[in-house]
């Protein structure tokens, strides 16, 4: 040992050490590659979920934007329209009396047998006199007779004339024609009778029934008796009112609290409490806010059930923490040099905040607002607890009227018994909701870049 040159011993040791390291390298690099692969797989899985989700919604929902529509010459047979002429102002009649008389007349008009007019027109169109009225009516949407009524009320001179009109096919006929229902099922399991199916097929082949864009999804309210004509108008207005309430209340209050906490609050117990409290509030499940709404707004303050104002208040409380937290981080990002410059020029703290710091954070506040509003727009659970899942067949005229909301409408539609039809309709509603959220975000990105460029 002593005779051995120290350098060569060391070299031998070094060699041994190196070969030891080398022997492990292949395994270690293998592990490295596998680890990377897991990462890529995870990302792939996450991206795949996005793709699957969207393709499912789009593939199910897009067909619902067109709907089987029958173009048909309607003959307003004067014989069937057994009704007096529409009342006009008589001498000595007060306007109120005329209105009452007119309302009576309209009621009578509604009672007329519009179904048989449709029936007659369809028979005329097809030359089919055999088909039973029930089968015939089962392929036309139940609410379409009111279209005839409305046309007649608007223009009583139609009596005896023939006008071409567009009538929605019933939900069952739509299903049948789109192939949403298995065509090979036995009669007993079909929603439509064999005659009705044959009629629908014939009209479709002859081009009298076409797939037309379903505008009524946007213009009609929800309907149970006439599912084919059910639309989102009421739910949309309900959501709009709620968003207005959220914007009017949550944004000013949220921004003000953020300013206070970030710029003015002294470091003390109370501030800490508010701070912890806001962070916790941000993570409270949304359904708890629904319970709060039910107990406080509905049960204690006796605000109306199903009203957008209550929904808006609940969503405001839910969105506040989001807006506060996001605004605070926007405020925190303002460089201290700007504050010091303002204070150095003799500005008071308030002046510094409102004249110098706040304007810089507008893009941040805007983003915070959009995030909050988008979150509120998609929220469902708390709204169920304040009665917004009630069936409402009217467009709310004010935030105090009964109304539904877009996500709640999705909830209601997915539960409809006519699965085949409403699966597509629900997906269509989801597309509308997502499109709204995406455009909200797009507007935010656009405004943000505009605001930032101006600086």
């Amino acid at each position, binding site marked *: 040992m002593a005779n051995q040159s120290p350098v060569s011993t060391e070299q031998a040791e070094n060699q041994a050490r190196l070969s030891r390291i080398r022997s492990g390298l292949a395994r*270690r*690099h293998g592990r*490295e590659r596998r*680890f*990377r692969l897991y*990462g890529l797989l*995870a*990302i792939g*899985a*996450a*991206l795949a*979920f*996005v793709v*699957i*989700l969207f393709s*499912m*919604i789009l593939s199910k929902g897009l067909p619902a934007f067109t709907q089987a529509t029958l173009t048909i010459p309607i003959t307003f047979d004067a014989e069937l329209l057994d009704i007096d002429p529409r009342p006009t102002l008589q001498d000595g009649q007060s306007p109120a009396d005329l209105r009452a008389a007119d309302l009576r007349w309209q009621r009578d008009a509604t009672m007329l047998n519009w179904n048989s007019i449709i029936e007659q027109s369809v028979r005329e169109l097809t030359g089919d006199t055999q088909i039973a009225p029930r089968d015939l009516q089962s392929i036309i949407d139940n609410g379409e007779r009111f279209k005839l009524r409305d046309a007649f009320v608007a223009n009583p001179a139609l009596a005896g004339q023939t006008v071409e009109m567009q009538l929605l096919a019933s939900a069952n006929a739509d299903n049948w024609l789109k192939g949403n229902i298995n065509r090979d099922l036995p009669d007993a399991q079909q929603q439509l009778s064999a005659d009705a199916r044959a009629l629908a097929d014939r009209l479709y082949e002859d081009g009298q029934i076409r797939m037309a864009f379903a505008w009524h999804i946007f213009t009609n309210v929800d309907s149970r008796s006439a599912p084919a004509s059910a639309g989102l108008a009421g739910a949309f207005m309900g959501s709009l009112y709620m968003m207005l309430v959220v914007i009017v209340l949550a944004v*000013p209050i949220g921004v*003000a*609290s953020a*300013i*206070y*906490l970030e710029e*003015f609050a002294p470091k003390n117990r109370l501030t800490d409490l*508010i701070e*912890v409290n806001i962070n*916790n*509030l941000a*993570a*409270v*499940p*949304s*359904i*708890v*806010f*629904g*319970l*709060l709404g*039910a*107990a*406080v707004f509905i049960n*204690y303050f006796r605000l109306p059930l199903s009203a957008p104002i209550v929904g808006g208040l609940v969503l405001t*409380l839910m969105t*506040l923490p989001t807006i*506060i937290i996001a605004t605070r981080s926007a405020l925190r990002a303002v460089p201290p040099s700007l504050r010091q410059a303002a204070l150095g020029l003799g500005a*008071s*703290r*308030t002046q510094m905040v409102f004249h110098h710091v706040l304007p810089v954070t507008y893009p941040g506040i805007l983003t915070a607002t959009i995030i909050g509003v988008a979150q509120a*727009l*998609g929220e*469902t659970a708390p709204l169920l*607890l304040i*009665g917004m*899942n009630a069936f409402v067949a009217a467009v709310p005229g004010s935030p105090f009227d009964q109304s539904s909301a877009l996500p709640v409408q*999705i909830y209601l539609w*997915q539960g409809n018994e006519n699965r085949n039809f409403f*699966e597509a309709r629900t*997906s269509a509603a989801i597309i509308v*909701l997502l499109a709204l*959220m995406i455009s909200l975000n797009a507007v935010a990105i656009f405004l943000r870049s505009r605001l930032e460029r101006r600086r």
Partner: protein
Amino acid sequence: MYSLLTIALLLALLSIAYQQGWAVSRKLATPEATRLHSRPPYHGSLVAIWTIAPALVILALWALFGATASRAYIVMNLPAEIVDQGGNVLQSAIQRVRAIASGAGVAGEVQPYEMAAGAAFRQFQNLASATVLGSAAAFAAVSLLFARKRIAVRLQARNEVERIVRYLLLGCSAVAILTTLGIVLSLVFEAARFFSFVSPIDFFFGTVWNPRFSTTGAGSGEYGLLPLLWGTVMVAAIAMFVSLPIGLMTAIYTSQYASPRMRSLVKPVVEVLAGIPTIVYGFFALVTVGPFLAAFGQTIGVNIRATSALTAGIVMGIMIIPFISSLSDDILRQVPRAMIDGSIGLGATRSETIKRVILPAALPGIVGAFLLAVSRAIGETMIVVLAAGNSPFLRANPGEPISTVTVTIVNQLTGDQDFASPQSLVAFALGLTLFVMTLFLNMAALYIVRRFREQYE
């Protein structure tokens, strides 16, 4: 009409007061010598605030108590026999009187007493709104004069305005506290009412959930929390089982391996998952994932129901992926570069560095993120409402339908809101349980994450 008048009055008051304050203070400042302490706009604002405040108080009082007062007035004018009947009769009578007074008219024949009450109520309304507006204006005028008088060269108008602004801001921050207080109080009070029907022991330790919707007898039905809690835990566990590996590995890859370009592409797409409303996930679970799992179970010979804990859990896991990935990404990026370099410099591979240095260093933060995600999972509602099957039994098989706390809250409180029966009130006891559970999780998570942040700041 009334509200238009009110707004007009307020606007007029504001502008007059502001103008007055501005002009008076302006006159004080002579160009030669005197300098105002505060600039005229502050004097204007101060006078405006002084002027508008009493008017607002009066209007607010009327808004709060006006409805009660007018109802009392109508009742006073109705015949005694109707008042004595109370209930719906009285209510509809009041509504009719209101309708008559508003000029909208009513259906059916108008009774003479209704007509009289309507006319009286109309007078009352006119008088009341005139009084309110008048007194608001009068008080405003008085305080305008007072505020005007205060204007002086030395008046610290700016400081006063700023102090008021500060109090307003403080008031806004208090809303958050009030919200929490509202949540706690309403949950506690309503839950206490529930516990007057059902003993807390039966509730917290009961193993049977069967509230029997009939309102025949109070207290009928069994309210055992355990089946619901079990369902909640099972769904949350499945969700974490899906989301933790995917979310964490995504965060690791995007923060440690991905090029900036890939990062900027992947992150927003994954975060799209976070923006999708939960009702959409619920629908996705119901229509796509559930049937797929059921079919999959059939091919491998396992009985999986379309709506089950598994379906809800998996979809909830997908929903939580972006939550975990963005929180973890944040945390992983806070591990100091020097520490990573130290490991790389010793010849460790990337993955060795990640597994042996970065993850242990980031562990507290990741635990925090995990806890927050769990809290979100147990509070999630719509996915389980749609996809978990709503079957409140203690079952160990995740392929079977279950029910959760949130689902049951929705079930018990939708429909008619009768706040007197244990069937509805139990929702608040469940809500309280949920609130306390999530509160603990959140507090723990926030505490851990904050400690972690401080460590590396």
